[in-house]
C-alpha cells in the first residue's frame, strides 16, 4: 500500500482517480486540479468530495438561501448570524440563546434507532460548540401512512433513538411533531432541534487564530463508522488489504457525549479555547478546514496522531470518518496543561494533533509525509455553486383549479362522528405513546412540553426569564402553494409561542425536499425559501440558521415540500405564562380570528384522500396584530390555544381533555366552523368579568372575536351533539397504542 503524498501526486499527474464514485462531477474534479495546480492526493480528494457534497456545501440551495441575509429584518437581537454552527440571539439579562434544527432523514430510514440517535447527538454538539449549555431538544418527525408495515418498522426505532440518546444526555424533550403522509414512506423525516443558553461573553466561534496555537482533538476515538464513499477510494486506489466494509450510519454513544458536554463546559468556563468546532458531517475534513479558514488559513495537522478505534484505518478514511462525539479545539500553548487536566478529570481522550501556522495553507502529514496541502477556504467555503433549473410543476395549476369536494357533517350524529374521526386520526391523535418515551423533566426547568402549543424552559430561577420554542410545517399547504405554505408555517410557529405569552424573536428552519435535480422540486424549494424570507422580513424575525435536506424522494415521487420552521421567543416571567387549557368550569370561551371556508389542505380533506384547492393566503400583518393581542391579553387569559391542523374541532378536543373539564359550544355553521383550517385563529378562555377587556383588545388590534361557549361539564357539547369526555378520550388516546403496541 503506497501512500499518495503530495510529492507522489506531483510526479504522477495522470493517475486515474475515482472522483465520480466519490460523488464529484468531472468539472468539479477539474476545478480541484486547477485550485491545486496538480492532481489532488487521495486524501485531498477525500476532503473535497465530502466537503463539496450537497450536505456540506449547500451547492444547490446557496443561491436561494442568500435571501435570508438580503431580506434580513433589522434586529438588535442577533448576536451571531448564519454561517456559524448555530445562530445566537440576545434574550436579555445578559443571556444569549442559540438554537438550530437539523435533519437526519436518510440515516434514520436505513437504521432508525442509530439514525435518530445520532441526529440528536449532532445538533446538540452544534449548540455546545457555540459555548452554550444545551437545555432542551425537540423532534419534528414525519412518517409514511400510520398503518403501513414500514412505518411500524421505522417509527418505534426512531422514537426509541430520539429518546435513548436525549434521555441519556439529560436533555428534556419539550416538543415536536408526528405527522403521517404516504409520500414519507421510504423517506421518513427526522428533524432534531436543540436549544442552549450562555452568557453573552461565553460565545465561541469556529476559528483557528494565532500562529503557534495548538489544534486539539478530544472526545471519542475515531473509527470507521459513517464513512460513505471512501471505501471506494480505498479499494480503487490502494487495492485490498485495508479495512473492511463498515456501516455508513454512525453509531452513537450518548454517555460519551454527556461527558463531553460537561467536560467542554468546564473548559469553556475557564476560557481555555480560542476557537472550537464539533466533528459532524465530513468529520475531520470539515473541522480542520472550517477552523483554518475561520482564522488566517494556516494550520498543520499530524493525522497519524489521531487516536483510532481501528488501527487499520487509512488516512483518507480518518479524514472522512463521521465517528460521533468528537470535538476539535484551538488552544493557546500556555493553557494546554489545564485543558488536558480537565479532560483527564472527565476521562475524555485528548490529543494535540497540530498547530495554527502563519501561512494560508492547511497541511496534513501522515508519519511525517505531506499528504494534504490545500487553501482551506477552497475546501470549506468555496465549493461549487449551482443555479439549478427550476420550473413550476404541472400539478400546481391542476390542483389549484379544483374545488375541495368532501362530505360535510350536517346532523348532530354526523357532527359528533366528525369530531371523533378527527380526534382519533393519526395526525391529530394523542401522542403520549411517543412522548412518554422522552424525559421532559430533567434539568428541572421545563415549564411547558408536549402537548402544549410550544415548549418552554426557564433560564433563570431568580428572575424567571424563559424561552419558548415551537416548530411547525404544514406540508399540505406547501404542496398546494409552497410560497404561502412557508409563510403560514412561520406564522403558526410564532402564534404557538405567543399563545403562551412569549414574544417571538428569531427563526430557524429545516427545509426537507425531494431531488434538487428535478426542476419542479427545485421550484418548490425556491418558492418556500422566498416565502420564508419574505415572511421573516415582514414579521421582523431574523433567520439565525438552518439546514437543507434534499433527495428525500423514492424514484420519481418526492416527499411533500416540508419546510419545518422553528420560532424562538422570550417570556419575561414564566410563572405568568398563559396555559394551553382551562382547569375550571364556568369560563367563557372565545374564538379570536375569522373562520373562512378553508378546507384545502385541511386534515378533513386529507382524511378523505383529497389534496386539491388553494391554500389560504398568509396575512402576516393580521398575524402580528393577533400576536400583540395575545401578549397583552396574557395578563388576564385563563387559557389560550392555537388552532391549526384539525381546526376548531381538534382545538376543542385538546383543550377539554387536558384537564378533563368539558365545554358547551354553540356554532352557527358547525361543519365549516369545526373543520375549516383558516389560519390566524386562537381559542381563549377568560373569566366572564374580563369580557369587555377582551372586546377592547379585539378592537384595538382589529381582530374579529366570537363567543364560542362556556367551560364545564363532562362532555364536549357542540349544538345538539353531546360527546362524553370518556368517549372522546378513548378515541383520542387509543390510536397510537393500537397501531404501535
Amino acid at each position, binding site marked *: 500500500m503506497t501512500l499518495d503524498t503530495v510529492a507522489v501526486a506531483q510526479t504522477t499527474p495522470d493517475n486515474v482517480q475515482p472522483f465520480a464514485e466519490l460523488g464529484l462531477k468531472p468539472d468539479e474534479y477539474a476545478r480541484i486540479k486547477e485550485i491545486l495546480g496538480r492532481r489532488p492526493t487521495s486524501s485531498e480528494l477525500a476532503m473535497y468530495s465530502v466537503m463539496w457534497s450537497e450536505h456540506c456545501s449547500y451547492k444547490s440551495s446557496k443561491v436561494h438561501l442568500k435571501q435570508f441575509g438580503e431580506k434580513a429584518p433589522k434586529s438588535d437581537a442577533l448576536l451571531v448570524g448564519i454561517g456559524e454552527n448555530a445562530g445566537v440571539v440576545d434574550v436579555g439579562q445578559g443571556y444569549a440563546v442559540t438554537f438550530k434544527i437539523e435533519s437526519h432523514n436518510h440515516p434514520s430510514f436505513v437504521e432508525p434507532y442509530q439514525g435518530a440517535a445520532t441526529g440528536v447527538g449532532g445538533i446538540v454538539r452544534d449548540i455546545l460548540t457555540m459555548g452554550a449549555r444545551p437545555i432542551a431538544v425537540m423532534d419534528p418527525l414525519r412518517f409514511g401512512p400510520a398503518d403501513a408495515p414500514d412505518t411500524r418498522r421505522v417509527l418505534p426505532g426512531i422514537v*426509541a433513538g430520539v*429518546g*435513548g440518546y436525549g*434521555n*441519556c*444526555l*439529560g436533555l428534556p424533550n419539550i416538543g415536536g411533531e408526528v405527522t403521517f403522509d404516504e409520500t414519507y414512506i421510504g423517506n421518513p423525516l427526522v428533524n432534531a432541534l436543540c436549544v442552549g443558553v450562555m452568557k453573552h461573553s461565553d460565545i465561541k466561534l469556529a476559528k483557528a487564530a494565532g500562529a503557534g496555537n495548538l489544534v486539539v482533538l478530544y472526545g471519542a476515538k475515531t473509527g470507521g463508522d459513517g464513512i460513505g464513499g471512501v471505501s471506494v477510494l480505498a479499494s480503487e486506489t490502494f487495492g485490498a488489504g485495508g479495512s473492511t466494509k463498515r456501516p455508513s450510519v454512525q453509531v452513537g*454513544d*450518548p*454517555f*460519551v457525549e*454527556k*461527558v463531553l458536554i460537561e467536560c467542554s463546559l468546564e473548559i469553556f468556563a475557564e476560557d481555555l479555547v480560542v476557537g472550537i468546532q464539533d466533528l459532524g458531517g465530513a468529520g475531520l475534513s470539515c473541522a480542520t478546514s472550517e477552523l483554518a479558514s475561520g482564522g488566517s488559513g494556516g494550520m498543520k495537522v499530524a493525522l497519524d496522531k489521531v487516536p483510532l478505534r481501528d488501527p487499520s484505518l487509512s488516512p483518507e478514511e480518518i479524514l472522512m470518518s463521521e465517528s460521533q462525539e468528537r470535538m476539535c479545539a484551538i488552544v493557546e500553548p500556555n493553557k494546554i496543561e489545564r485543558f488536558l487536566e480537565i479532560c483527564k*478529570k*472527565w*476521562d475524555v481522550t485528548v490529543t494535540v494533533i497540530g498547530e495554527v501556522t502563519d501561512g494560508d495553507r492547511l497541511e496534513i502529514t501522515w508519519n511525517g509525509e505531506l499528504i494534504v496541502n490545500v487553501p482551506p477556504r477552497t475546501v470549506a467555503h468555496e465549493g461549487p455553486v449551482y443555479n439549478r433549473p427550476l420550473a413550476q410543476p404541472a400539478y400546481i395549476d391542476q390542483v389549484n383549479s379544483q374545488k375541495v369536494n368532501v362530505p360535510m357533517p350536517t346532523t348532530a350524529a354526523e357532527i359528533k362522528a366528525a369530531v371523533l374521526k378527527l380526534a382519533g386520526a393519526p395526525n391529530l391523535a394523542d401522542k403520549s405513546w411517543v*412522548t*412518554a*418515551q*422522552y*424525559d*421532559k*423533566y*430533567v*434539568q*428541572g*426547568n*421545563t*415549564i411547558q412540553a408536549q402537548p402544549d402549543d410550544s415548549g418552554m424552559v*426557564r433560564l433563570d*430561577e431568580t428572575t424567571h426569564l424563559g424561552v419558548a420554542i415551537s416548530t411547525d410545517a404544514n406540508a399540505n399547504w406547501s404542496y398546494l402553494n409552497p410560497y404561502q405554505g412557508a409563510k403560514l408555517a412561520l406564522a403558526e410557529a410564532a402564534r404557538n409561542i405567543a399563545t403562551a405569552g412569549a414574544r417571538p424573536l428569531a427563526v430557524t428552519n429545516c427545509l426537507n425536499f425531494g431531488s434538487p435535480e428535478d426542476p419542479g422540486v427545485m421550484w418548490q424549494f425556491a418558492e418556500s425559501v422566498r416565502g420564508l424570507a419574505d415572511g421573516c422580513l415582514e414579521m421582523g424575525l431574523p433567520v439565525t440558521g438552518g439546514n437543507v435536506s434534499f433527495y428525500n424522494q423514492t424514484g420519481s415521487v418526492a416527499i411533500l415540500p416540508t419546510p419545518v420552521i422553528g420560532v424562538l421567543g422570550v417570556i419575561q416571567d*414564566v*410563572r405568568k405564562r398563559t396555559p394551553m387549557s382551562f382547569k375550571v368550569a364556568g369560563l367563557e370561551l372565545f374564538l379570536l380570528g375569522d373562520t373562512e371556508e378553508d378546507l384545502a389542505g385541511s386534515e378533513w380533506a386529507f382524511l378523505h384522500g383529497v389534496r386539491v384547492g388553494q391554500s389560504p393566503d398568509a396575512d402576516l400583518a393580521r398575524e402580528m396584530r393577533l400576536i400583540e393581542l395575545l401578549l397583552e391579553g396574557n395578563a388576564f387569559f385563563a387559557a389560550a390555544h392555537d388552532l391549526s391542523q384539525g381546526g376548531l374541532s381538534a382545538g376543542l378536543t385538546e383543550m377539554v381533555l387536558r384537564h378533563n373539564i368539558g365545554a358547551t359550544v354553540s356554532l352557527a355553521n358547525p361543519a365549516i366552523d369545526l373543520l375549516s383550517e383558516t389560519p390566524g385563529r386562537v381559542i381563549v378562555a377568560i373569566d366572564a368579568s374580563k369580557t369587555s377587556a377582551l372586546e377592547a383588545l379585539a378592537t384595538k388590534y382589529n381582530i374579529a372575536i366570537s363567543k364560542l361557549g362556556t367551560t364545564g361539564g363532562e362532555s364536549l357539547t357542540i349544538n345538539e351533539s353531546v360527546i362524553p369526555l370518556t368517549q372522546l378520550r378513548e378515541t383520542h388516546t387509543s390510536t397510537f397504542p393500537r397501531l404501535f403496541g
Partner: protein
Amino acid sequence: MRVGVITFPGTLDDRDAARAVVAGGAEAVSLWHADADLKNVDAVILPGGFSYGDYLRCGAISRFAPVMNLVIEAAGKGMPVLGICNGFQVLCESHLLPGALTRNSDLHFLCKDQEIEIINNATAWTSSYKPGEKIVIPLKNGEGSFQCDDETLAKLEDQGRVIARYVGQNPNGSRNLIAGITNERGNVVGLMPHPEHAIDELTGPTAQGLGFFTSILNAMVK
C-alpha cells in the same frame, strides 16, 4: 445541615436534586465520584441519570467509585442515604438494599406523572408524610421494574420496608407495585420515581415530592 449530592459520569439529575435539597431547607454539597471524600455531609443523595451510560447493568460500575466506599461505610453507621432512580440501582448493586431494577415490562422508557402511596413514614426520608398518603411525582426510567426473590419480598413486606407503592396500573412490572424500599435500619432509601422533580407546580406535576427533602431535616433534628 449538609446534604451531599454525588455526581457520577453520566449522572443527570444532580443539579435537580441539589435544588430540591435547598428547597427543603438544607445546604447542598456537590460530591464527585472519584473523590474519597464526603466533605462532612450529614446525608447523601445518589441522583438519577445514566451513570457510565448504563451499558452494563445499571449502577454496576458506579458502585465501585471511590466515593461509594465511604457511602457504604457511613450508611452502616446510620447516615441517611437516598438513591433516586439510577441512585436506587446503585444502592442495590452496592448491596445496601436488596433486589434489582430490571427493564420495564413493556420494554419502553417511560416518563409519566405517577401516583404513589407512602407506606412507611418511619424512615429518614419519609417522615414528612403520613402513612397511606398519596402523592403524584414523575416516574422516568427504562429499567424501573423492582425484582427480588420470594424470600426477600416476604421479608421486605413483613418488616414494613416497602416505603412506597405505585397506585393503579403497574407502570413497569415491579413486584408488589414496589416504588421504593428501605434497609432494616430505615436510613437508606431507594426510590424509583423522582421527588426532586416535584418540588413546585411550575416545573413539576405537583410540589408533593418536597416531603422527602424536608423529612431529612426532621431526621437530623432528632
